[in-house]
């Protein structure tokens, strides 16, 4: 079965499902289908782990007896489609009627259409592998070792049709490339650099590895400290929205409209209030022409838009879909998300509120000024434990790595630094925002200095530190193999 055959099958299956839902008494029905091809390229040290797959499936969301139901399948036979629709209807009918449920969205033309790179859409596996191989660096600095590289190339089609008349057939493509290097200067440390794009050539493949090496050199030979108290913290872009642990993902969750409507977030009923430093402006931008998560329509077919969530410190709105927009007497701002490139098979869950790409406006300080104005503190990134944060209050206690700052200068890299606090408190304590912004896979944000955060850290046990020193000496003398490589 060719890819086009699969497209025909999906379209036909959606039509069968919509017709069947109507016959079975559903007042509204929405069918969503996916046919995407992915090249997942991975080199783990010296072990290639490339794979190729077709991501496929269909889901149906219905309204029956004034309640929503949802079911999915990855089988396209007519009986299976009807069975799946029946499941969705049964699923709806077992619920109580929801008076807030007004139906699925009506068709609306997107004013801003994103371009699709045809070359990327048609790239063959060997072409993807060529690009992937280009990112590797042959000559590495001493004590720096290659750990892992990865590439993902996703291209394909999605279909969305509902009983209100929305009928979208979207072709899309995106790719991402990244590498990790390990430093064995002192205690082992590593870092990762990844970039994503929607147009072939947007990622400078020759520079990617060099950037990753620079990042790992900057954190080589980290120390641990025994310290506790309140200190200023500069949160780097990798620390706020990096894929290896971004603390500000907690903020995004606190701004979800569903949480606000249920009073589940500290920012419920706070529209119009000053909730952050007056220079802090945060935008969700699904229309960035070259971000892998960009989209012209959201997961339920509403045109997407650039949304200022916080402007000059004042909360402007929440992330909203059709249902919660209506519930909060507001309008959807096109934030219904179905996952996708990075979120597994999007047919497996109904559209739910999510962000596309977060941007924070630059400030008026340079990073150098932020460091030089810090008497004693830390610049941190790559936090662990974010998923344990309290997504209602925004309370967090996370462990990160980065640099120790003393008398306005970066002294040395550090690791195992635990910081704790709450996101609302942190936002109000931001006292400096950098002019420089760094573009990540799903974000473009500056460095943010928080005037005071609670810090706790413990110096690594003497025996372990001593053991590593002995081991290093033995490796130099050729008496032992480096176990970290």
């Amino acid at each position, binding site marked *: *079965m*060719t890819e086009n055959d*699969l497209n025909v099958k999906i379209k036909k299956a959606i039509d069968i499902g919509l017709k069947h839902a109507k016959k079975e008494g559903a007042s509204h029905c929405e069918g969503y289908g996916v046919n995407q091809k992915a090249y997942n390229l991975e*080199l783990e*040290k010296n072990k*290639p*782990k*490339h*794979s*190729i*797959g*077709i991501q496929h499936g269909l889901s149906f969301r219905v309204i029956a007896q004034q309640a*929503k139901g*949802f*079911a999915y399948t*990855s*089988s396209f036979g007519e009986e299976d489609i009807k069975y799946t629709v029946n499941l969705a209807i049964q699923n709806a009918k*077992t*619920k*109580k009627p*929801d008076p807030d449920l007004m139906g699925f969205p009506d068709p609306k033309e997107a004013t801003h259409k994103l371009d699709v790179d045809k070359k990327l859409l048609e790239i063959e*596996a*060997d072409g993807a*592998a060529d690009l992937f*191989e280009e990112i590797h660096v042959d000559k590495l600095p001493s004590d720096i070792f290659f*750990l*892992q590289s990865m590439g993902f190339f996703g291209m394909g089609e999605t279909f969305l049709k509902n009983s209100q008349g929305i009928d979208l057939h979207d072709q899309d493509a995106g790719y991402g490339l990244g590498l990790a290097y*390990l430093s064995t200067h002192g*205690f*082992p440390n*590593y870092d990762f650099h990844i970039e994503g794009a929607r147009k072939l050539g947007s990622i400078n493949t020759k520079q990617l590895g060099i950037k990753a090496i620079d990042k790992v050199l900057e954190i080589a030979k980290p120390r641990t400290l*025994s310290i*506790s108290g309140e200190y200023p913290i500069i949160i780097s872009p990798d620390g706020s929205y990096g894929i290896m642990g971004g603390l500000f993902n907690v903020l995004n969750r606190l701004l979800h409209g*569903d949480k606000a409507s*249920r*009073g*589940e977030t*500290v920012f419920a009923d706070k529209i119009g209030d000053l909730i952050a430093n007056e220079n802090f402006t945060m935008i969700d931008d699904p229309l960035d022409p070259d971000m892998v998560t960009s989209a012209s329509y959201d997961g339920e077919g509403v045109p997407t838009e650039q949304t200022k969530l916080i402007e000059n410190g004042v909360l402007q709105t929440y992330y909203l879909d059709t249902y919660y927009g209506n519930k909060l007497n507001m309008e959807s701002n096109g934030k219904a998300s179905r996952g996708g490139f990075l979120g597994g*098979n999007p047919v*497996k*869950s109904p559209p739910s509120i999510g962000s596309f790409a977060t941007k924070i406006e630059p400030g008026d300080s340079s990073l150098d000024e932020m460091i030089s104005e810090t008497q004693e503190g830390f610049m941190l990134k790559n936090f*662990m*434990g974010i*998923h*344990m944060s*309290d*997504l*209602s209050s925004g*309370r967090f206690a*996370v*462990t990160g790595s980065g640099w120790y700052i003393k008398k306005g200068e970066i002294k040395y890299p550090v*690791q*195992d630094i*635990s910081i*704790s606090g709450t996101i609302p408190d942190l936002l109000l304590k931001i006292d400096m925002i950098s002019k420089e912004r760094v573009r990540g896979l799903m974000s473009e944000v500056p460095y943010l200095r928080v005037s005071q955060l609670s810090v*706790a850290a*413990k110096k690594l046990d003497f*025996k372990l530190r001593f053991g590593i020193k002995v081991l290093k000496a033995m490796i130099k003398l050729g008496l032992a193999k480096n*176990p*970290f490589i």
Partner: protein
Amino acid sequence: MSDKIISKMFETLGKEKVDYADIRLENSHMTVIKTVNGKVEESITGIESGIGLRILKEGVWGFSCGPVESGSDIVKMALQANRLNLRNKTQDIKLAEVKTIQDKFEGAQKKKLHDVGFDKKIELTMEADKAQEDERIKSRTSFYREVLRKMVLETTEGTIIEYNVPYVMMYGLSVAREESETIEGRSRIGHLGGLEVFDFRSPTEIGEKAKERALEGLKSPKVKSGRYPVVLDGTINHLFAHEAAGHSAEGDFVQTAGVLKGKLEKRVAAPIVNLIDDGSLQESTGIKTFGYLKYDDEGVPGQKTYIIKNGILETYLNDRSTAAYFELKPTGNSRAEAYNVPQIVRMTNTYISPASNPMKPEELLEQIKNGFLLMQGGGGQVDPIKGTFNFGVAELYEIKNGEVGKRYRPTTLAGNTLETLNKITGISPEMENPLDSIGFCGKDGQSAPVGVSGGWLAVKSIVIG
């Protein structure tokens, strides 16, 4: 129909002269129900079907996946993936020898998932919601998830295993609020089996526990961040054993880097420490475990593996390729979340038990004297290369003069794996109820059901808060 599809794919692969291939043909069923504040917020039922094909040719893998109808395309894609892997080949992948198996892995269900209607499952979830009601609880969430994993594994060596494995889990999440203070309380259960899991703990009890944790947390003071001597309960034993020590021992991780690399047969923990992964542990304290595996996804039987024995690193956790690489035995730890991802090394039921000098929980409290008792771990993250970890803790109590005292607000604990393994000063042998220690562990974007609770641990020093 599946026989025909698989035979045809093997026939094509035979012409391509592959050294080995395994096919996983899946047709699994899932149900998810999420209620929020007395209303069904999300209800999903789905059928996940497709084929995953892994081939070994010229010393490298090739993995592909796709719809059941696309068998020949899947074969082509696997060969293409294999060619891509050949471009970066530096060494041959070899597989450790195993016995071929023809069998079924059938998870017993007293109350079968398919015999109970969707409306009843909503009712059960609503029970957990109702039990959380309280004027101080601002938001109540209950979550029910069932998976019936139906799959056939066939290999070119002759292994054929039919999997029919049910999993059920439920959790409650209460958010208490007083003025501007909010706090979350969580509770969960799960097992490999049917809906009889609720005979051991009812949805009402799950909801009540979540509520109690939120309300108790709200009125409890915050602990001052710092280093403290601690006693960890069975759930945190499991969390530490799994997250910190277990992940660091996964053969595929160790091939790349990690704190346990190069440490086989060396001391990595206090001599009283045994670290065990036990896929063959079907029941603990009379309850079916979440991480039980009759066979893993390469057809290797689940088994009890001493990763660390008497403080010495005995083995890594292996699939067939890492076993061959390290010249160790396969340990039955090769798992894949579904047909659309390749098998990787995963844990099963993981815990620390005393190698010697077993102690009672009260003796551990007495030994620590002054510090904290940490109970009900939840969530966790580890960096197996740096060897650092960070866990959530739902219940925190002061230990004063060996007695359990005042309760504190939920918090986190953080530490270094090797350091903590060496700072364990006492272990109690009694396994705690595994219902509290179930979870879906995430690795490489895949999730796998894991357990199990253990005894209590005393640790000289750890960072809290």
